[in-house]
Every structure is written in structure tokens, then in C-alpha cells.
């Protein structure tokens, strides 16, 4: 009898424990989301998928993104850890007062000293592969000296004036620096954790962050699990656990959604879109939003053939494409046809004039360009990679509307994106076109041009100037390995060349009306100062190796300057005008830059080197009980981010 009672008590205990656990589990709000790419780690400063998580989910910076339905990309930049901040008149000194209530996930307070240490660590030479171009650290005083190892990390222009006051000194004015501070590379790290665990500090178990969520498990190319940070201070939704599953493009997201394994699924192609539209349940859960931070279209090939130097010819091609039909038919309504870089609904696009679809005018322009009905026009090529049905449509439009046959040439993907699309120049490219999509990376003033500034950097010169510039660039590369510079005689021509270039530079500076551009040209150390420094090094060099290295550097400095001067003297007036406006944008706060952007973009657009055709829609199905999802529309998007705004009903 006693034994029976004992068993009964044990069973009851077990039942209560199980019921209790089940109750707790049932109470937990879990959301399962697809992550478009692998999360290779939780290190915030690498330009990898996790930098989206770093921005406001597992970390928080001085500034962050908040929802703004009417803002660009549906977001706006807001202070997060920063309570107050000031920017000096010259745009070079930023002082931030931090909130005193913010904590790390282990309960330690987040202080200005965390930022000071982190920025010195990330800018230091021990992390040579940090993508500085995607980081606000690139603008900080002495950042490059620290990165190269020439200066100690404590020389970096970041100082914690006290526990909650951070001062950042910049090498050049950046009035939009606060917008840069949302970047993953601007997040603070927990010093003790990094020092204790070395390269493994980011692994769940070791990880200490300051965002509303903390990773508790991670499997490469499988999933990451985040749970609410119990020490987080601030607004956060009611989701307790977020499971991010790695679903690259082409994976069966929709099936996983249908099977209840995901609470959201992205629609990746026309077939999936049609499937969703044909399924009543999925159709009900369907959502779409225009990705206004990203334009898609084509660009002129980056070769040196002068055929495409003819503006009327470029304009004729740009005006002979029916963008609406393209978006409606080939892209099956998954995009909106658009003849400008921004939409009519935003403050930039409102002031931009679109490239119209006007076949008659296009035909006339073609004739005026010297190729009536396409006669006499050399064979043009449209380079593509993989399957690009939109290009077939474009080429067909040119055939129909202009009578021009453009050959489509399909090349290997790596070669295509790296050598034909994003390379400075592609000497081997025949005259013609490539596809391109121009995104924004962050809300910073320069990015408002959505990469159309490549028109200024690589296009808007006569082809002879482009070619010359390329040759100088190649020559400069050759000096990485050239031998010489052991005798004073080797330096004589260099010294003479330096004087000549210096005189020419003074002339350029004197004539250039844009103070911003001049400031950029004269940024310290100037080319002659760099040259003098290297020359002194050569004089003091003890070995032949050191002498040769100094001589190589001197040659490279002069060739770099020569390249600049060749470009400056050879560029068109529109190019100069565009650059002046761009430098002005870079020297104004983000909100002001939005006002200058339309003027700059109109100049770029009217050169027809980079031609917008459509904007994609981000399409997805989502469980109706999930609210407050923020869609990330920047260059790695579309994705969901900033999970603290997410709630489960």
C-alpha cells in the first residue's frame, strides 16, 4: 500500500512537472522566419548577412532604424543609445551623450568606453579584412594610420570623455555621420567577452550583446535561434524566441510555410508568385511592398569603344523601351516600370523627370546620332549571365522600335558581375550594355545616388580619356613589383614630375569653383606631401629592398595624381557639375542631401549611361497574427529586421 502511494506521488509529481513545463512552453511566443542567406557568425562588422541582425536586433548602436511608413525605404534613422549629440560647425567633431540605462545581456552597463575600445579594436591592424568602406570608422581621424599599423590604436580620433560621453573626431567633414552609425560596423562590442574568448566571442554561450535579442544557438547554413535579452531596457515586442532558418534563393520556403514550419515566406520568382495567386489560402496571406531603395535597369558597357560616347544614341536606346509592359508581362507584375531612379511618391523622385517611352522620338534621335534605322551602327552586345528574360524583352523592343539588332552574349556569373558590371573599366567589352541594379547600403548622403555616381567616375569622359586613365591605373599596378630606385638618378625624373604635377594641381585648385571638391582634392596628406615623405624614407633607407619599396610607392603616388589630373582635365562639364553637387551632398546632413539629390540625379540620368527600367516589389506571405515586421530594403534585402518591433497577436 505504501509503495502504491509512493508511486502515485511520483506519478503526480511527474505529471505536474510535465504540465508545468508544457504550460511555460505554451506561453512562449515563437516566430519562425526564413533568413535569405547564411548567417556565418554574429560578428557585426563584417559585410555579411548578419550585419542586418546586428542593426537593432542582437546589437544596438548610437543610432538605429525605426519604422516610418512614408519615409524612404519605410524607415528613418533615430537615436538609440545616443540621448543627445552635437556636431561641430566644421562637421568634424561629433559629441554624443549616451543613455545611462542601457545594459549588455550579462547586465553590465553600456558605456562610452565600450565604444572607444570597440572602434579602436575594429580599426586596428589585427583585423585587416574589416570592410572599412562599409564602416563609419573610415572617416575617423587617424583610422587609416591605425589600420595600416603605422599608428597605435589609441591615436584613433575616438575618446570617451567620461562613462557616458563619447567624442569622435573625423578626418573629413561628415554631416551625415549619425546616419552612418546605424551600420553593423558601428555597433559596440563587450570588451571582456572579446578578450576572454578571442575569435570565438560571438558563439552562442560566449556571446554578450546589447540588443533586444541574444543568440542562443547557431548552426552554419541551418538556423540561428534568438531569445529575448532579459537585461534589455527599452521598447520590445512580445516575441520570446525567433528561429531564423537559412533558406537561400530557390529553396522551398513556400512549402515550409504551408507545412507550418515558417511564419513568413518570401516569393522568389514568377512561378511562385503565380502559385500563390492561384492558392486561396496563400493569396489571403500575400503582401507586397515596393523596394524603393533599389533600381534595376541597364548600363552601357565599360569598354573603350567610342560608339557609345554619342549621347543621342544612348538617349534613343533609353527611350525605346516600354517599361510598363516589361513590368506587367515579363516580370509578371512583380515590379513597377519606372524611368527614373526614385519613385513619384518620395521627395527625390517627385522632382526627377522620368525618361519617357517615346519610340518616334527615339527613332529620330537615332537618325540624328548618325544611324538612321540603325544603319551603319556597329554590332552592339548586351552582356548577360544566366537567365535574364527582361534583357530579351529590351533587345526585342530595340529591334521593334529602332530597327537595331543587339546580340545577347551570356557569360559566366563571377566574370560578369566582377569584370563587366562593377569593374571600373572592362577593356575587353564590345560596345553595348550590361544589366545593373543600384541599391543603397545605408542612409548616407552619397548613397542617395544609388550608384548612379558611377556615371561620374567611369563614364562621362570621352573614351580616349577613359582609356588613358585605365592605362595609368595599370601602370600604377605594375609598380607594385617593378625593380629600380636604388640611385639618385632614378629619382630625378620623379622629382621633376612631382613639380610639374604640383603646378598643374595648383592651377586646378585655383580654378575649381566648388570649395567641397577643392577640400577633397587637398585632403591631407596631399600627393606631394606623401611623395616627400616617401622620398625622405628612401634617403634614410638602409637596404636595397627598402629603397626599391620607397621608389615604387613614389611612382604609384605620382601615377595616381596623374590619373586624377587626366580625368579632371578630360571630363565633360556635366561630369564636373555632377561631382560638385555630389560633394555638396556629402557635406550636408542627410535631410538636406535629399534636397540636392534630385538635381544631381537628373544630371546623371540625362547622360543615359545608367538607365533605370523598373523597381522590384518585395513579395511575401505571412501569418496574420504577426505584426510590426520591418522590411529591410537596403542592398542585402529584402529581409526582415529590427525584430524589437515585432509582435504576435
Amino acid at each position: 500500500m505504501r509503495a502504491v502511494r509512493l508511486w502515485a506521488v511520483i506519478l503526480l509529481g511527474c505529471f505536474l512537472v510535465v504540465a508545468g513545463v508544457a504550460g511555460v512552453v505554451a506561453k512562449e511566443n515563437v516566430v519562425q522566419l526564413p533568413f535569405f542567406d547564411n548567417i556565418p557568425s554574429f560578428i557585426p562588422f563584417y559585410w555579411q548577412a548578419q550585419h542586418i541582425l546586428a542593426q537593432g536586433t542582437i546589437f544596438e548602436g548610437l543610432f538605429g532604424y525605426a519604422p516610418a511608413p512614408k519615409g524612404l525605404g519605410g524607415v528613418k534613422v533615430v537615436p538609440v543609445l545616443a540621448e543627445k549629440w552635437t556636431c561641430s560647425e566644421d562637421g568634424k567633431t561629433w559629441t554624443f551623450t549616451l543613455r545611462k540605462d542601457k545594459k549588455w545581456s550579462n547586465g553590465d552597463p553600456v558605456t562610452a568606453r565600450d565604444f572607444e575600445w570597440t572602434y579602436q579594436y575594429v580599426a586596428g591592424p589585427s583585423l585587416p579584412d574589416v570592410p572599412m568602406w562599409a564602416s563609419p570608422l573610415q572617416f575617423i581621424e587617424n583610422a587609416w594610420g591605425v589600420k595600416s599599423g603605422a599608428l597605435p590604436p589609441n591615436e584613433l580620433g575616438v575618446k570617451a570623455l567620461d562613462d557616458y560621453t563619447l567624442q569622435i573626431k573625423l578626418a573629413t567633414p561628415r554631416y551625415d555621420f549619425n546616419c552612418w552609425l546605424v551600420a553593423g560596423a558601428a555597433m559596440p562590442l563587450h570588451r571582456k567577452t572579446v578578450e576572454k574568448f578571442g575569435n570565438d566571442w560571438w558563439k552562442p554561450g560566449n556571446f554578450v550583446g546589447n540588443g533586444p535579442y541574444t543568440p542562443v544557438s547557431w548552426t552554419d547554413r541551418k538556423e540561428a535561434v534568438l531569445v529575448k535579452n532579459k537585461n534589455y531596457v527599452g521598447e520590445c515586442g512580445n516575441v520570446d524566441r525567433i528561429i531564423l532558418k537559412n533558406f537561400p534563393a530557390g529553396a522551398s520556403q513556400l512549402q515550409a510555410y504551408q507545412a507550418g514550419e515558417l511564419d513568413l515566406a518570401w516569393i522568389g520568382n514568377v512561378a511562385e508568385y503565380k502559385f500563390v495567386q492561384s492558392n486561396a489560402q496563400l493569396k489571403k496571406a500575400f503582401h507586397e511592398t515596393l523596394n524603393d531603395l533599389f533600381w534595376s535597369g541597364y548600363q552601357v558597357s565599360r569598354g573603350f569603344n567610342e560608339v557609345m560616347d554619342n549621347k543621342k544614341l544612348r538617349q534613343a536606346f533609353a527611350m525605346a523601351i516600354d517599361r510598363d509592359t516589361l513590368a506587367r508581362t515579363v516580370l509578371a507584375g512583380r515590379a513597377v516600370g519606372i524611368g527614373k531612379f526614385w519613385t513619384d511618391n518620395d521627395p527625390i523622385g517627385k522632382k526627377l523627370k522620368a525618361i519617357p517611352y517615346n519610340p518616334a522620338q527615339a527613332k529620330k534621335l537615332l537618325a540624328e546620332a548618325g544611324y538612321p534605322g540603325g544603319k551603319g551602327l556597329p554590332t552592339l552586345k548586351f552582356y548577360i549571365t544566366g537567365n535574364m528574360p527582361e534583357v530579351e524583352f529590351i533587345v526585342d523592343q530595340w529591334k521593334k522600335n529602332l530597327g537595331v539588332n543587339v546580340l545577347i552574349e551570356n557569360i559566366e556569373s563571377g566574370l560578369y558581375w566582377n569584370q563587366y558590371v562593377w569593374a571600373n573599366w572592362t577593356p575587353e567589352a564590345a560596345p553595348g550594355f550590361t544589366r545593373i541594379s543600384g541599391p543603397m547600403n545605408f542612409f548616407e548622403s552619397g548613397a542617395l545616388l544609388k550608384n548612379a555616381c558611377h556615371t561620374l567616375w567611369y563614364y562621362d569622359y570621352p573614351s580616349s580619356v577613359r582609356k588613358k586613365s585605365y592605362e595609368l591605373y595599370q601602370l600604377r599596378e605594375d609598380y607594385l613589383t617593378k625593380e629600380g630606385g636604388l640611385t639618385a638618378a632614378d629619382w630625378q625624373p620623379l622629382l621633376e614630375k612631382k613639380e610639374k604635377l604640383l603646378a598643374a594641381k595648383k592651377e586646378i585648385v585655383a580654378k575649381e569653383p566648388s570649395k567641397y571638391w577643392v577640400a577633397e582634392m587637398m585632403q591631407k596628406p596631399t600627393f606631394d606631401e606623401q611623395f616627400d615623405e616617401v622620398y625622405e624614407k628612401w634617403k634614410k633607407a638602409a637596404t636595397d629592398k627598402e629603397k626599391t619599396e620607397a621608389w615604387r610607392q613614389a611612382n604609384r603616388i605620382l601615377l595616381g595624381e596623374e590619373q586624377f589630373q587626366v580625368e579632371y582635365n578630360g571630363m565633360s562639364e556635366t561630369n564636373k557639375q555632377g561631382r560638385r553637387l555630389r560633394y555638396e551632398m556629402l557635406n550636408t546632413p542627410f535631410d538636406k542631401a535629399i534636397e540636392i539629390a534630385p538635381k544631381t540625379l537628373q544630371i546623371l540620368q540625362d547622360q543615359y549611361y545608367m538607365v533605370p527600367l523598373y523597381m522590384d516589389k518585395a513579395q511575401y506571405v505571412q501569418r496574420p497574427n504577426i505584426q510590426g515586421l520591418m522590411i529591410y530594403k537596403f542592398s542585402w534585402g529584402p529581409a526582415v529586421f529590427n525584430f524589437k518591433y515585432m509582435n504576435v497577436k
Partner: protein
Amino acid sequence: MPSRSFPRFLINDALDERGAFMSFLKYLGKRLLTIAFSIVVLTVITYCLMYAAPGNFFDIQRYQTAAGGTSLSKEQVEILRRGFEKKYGIDQPLWKQILIYLKDAVQFKFGPAFSNPSVNIEDLIKEKFPVTLTLGLLGMGLAVLVGIPLGILAALKRNTWLDYTATFFAMIGQVIPAYVVAVLLIILFAVTLGWLPTSGWGTFRHMILPVIAVALGPMAVIARFMRVSLLDALNQDYIRTAYAKGGPERTVILKHALRNSLTPSSPSSGRPWPGSWPVRPSGSNRSSGFPGSASSSSPPPATGTIRSSSLPPSSWPSR
């Protein structure tokens, strides 16, 4: 002395055996040495080819710079380039790079990939390879367990509806690629019936669909090989003799025909390895969210975003 204790012929046999064993060892040693030498030569050749191939990860990062619309000065690019090359040892002469790589490879130390500096390659292999191995073994096991009986059945019931059905399914299994099978299985068993998960790995339920998808193709091949091979064996004189001597059908088939027909069909059982789910970075593992080693080496998707420009055919040490 052994010669006093054992009959002469036994000693001779033992000596023969020892000789045979020694020559086997010699042969094995030779083969192993050849394999090791081939691996070294192939590694060096591959390294040199990757070295000579145009483009490199650093330049791709620079293109990203351009793609991001941010301009770094030439000097800044130089600083990054020097730091990057130093970190990965690619500032060393080629011969030295190769030696360092071979030395590290022998110790199973590959370091981080260019594209992911946070994780060492060897850690990824350690994590992924067991999954790949499990799936490969299970796939192979299933293919053999089902393929061989299916082939036997088809051969024994030649030209009957059973044979036609088995051959039909074998053909289907052979012609439909694994990634299509995977999607069909997901739609049927995960979406429609809701019995099994659509993706992932870790429990027995997660393994069922990938194992079937992997095994189906090789299963079909094994079944067809088995059928042909068994039919061939059944037509041999020794089978007729066995029957003539009054051997029961079961014994004749199992002991004589089947044993001899297994040899030609056995190579086909290795098929799940090279052409299957876990080891091919193509659609099948993508469609299943399978976390095997192929998924680690496969490049991220090229979707026309900035990422696509960042997809480096990274140089050899990262692979």
C-alpha cells in the same frame, strides 16, 4: 622448430601465405604512396590554377566598394590590400604559399575562408561531414536494400507485369533528378500530408525525405544492373548443370546465380556518393534546407543584388 612439428605441405602453405601477405602489403604500400603523391600533385596544380585565374577576393571587395557607391582613396585601398594579403599569407611567393598550404593541410588546418573570416574551414568540415556521411550511408543502404531485391524480382519474374512494373519504376527513378524528387516528396509528405518536416536535419523524421531522394536514383540503377546481371547468370551453363544435378531452385538461385551476379552490380551501389543530395551543391540540398557539407561549399545565391557581385570564386585556400 616448426619444421619438426608440422607437415611439410603446411609449412609451404604458410610460407606461401606469408609471401602473399607481404606482396599484398607491398602492393598496398605502393598504392597508398601513389595516392598520396597524386593528391600532392593535384593540390599543387589546383593551387597554381587558382593562383593564375584572373580576379581575386580583394579586388572583388573593391568592386563592392564601388557597388556600394563609396569611394576609398587609392592609398586607403593599398592599406587594406597589404593587410589582407598579410593576413592570408598571399603576400608570400607562390612556392612558399603552396608549401604552407600543404603543411597546414596535412595537419588538417585550413584557417578561415576569405569570404567568412569568422569560422575556420576545418571546423565547418568537422560539423558538416558527419551529416554528409550519415546521409550518404543511409542513402546507399536504402538503395542496396531495395534495389537488389527489386532487381532479383524483376529477373525471376521476367516479362511479367511484376518485371514491367519494377523496370518502369527503376526507369522513373533513374531519369528524374534528385532535386525534382525532393520537391515532389516535400509537397506530398510535408505539405499535403503533413507527416514529415520540409527541411532541416537532426532527428529521424528529418532524415526520411532526403534519404529517399538520394537513394531513388541509385536504387533504380542497382535494380536494373541486378536484373540484367541475374538474367545473364541464369543463362549460364553452370546454372543449367546445377539444375540438372537436381539442385532445388532456391539453392541454385541464391547460392550460384545470385552470388555470381552480385559482382557486376556492386560498383553501382556506390552511386549515392558522387551524384546525390548531400554532396552536390545544386538544387536538391537547396530545396531541402539540408545542412550537409555541399551546402558549405556552395556559393551564395546570385540574385542580382549587390551580393551577387560579391560572390567570389575565392581562391584555393578558402575552399
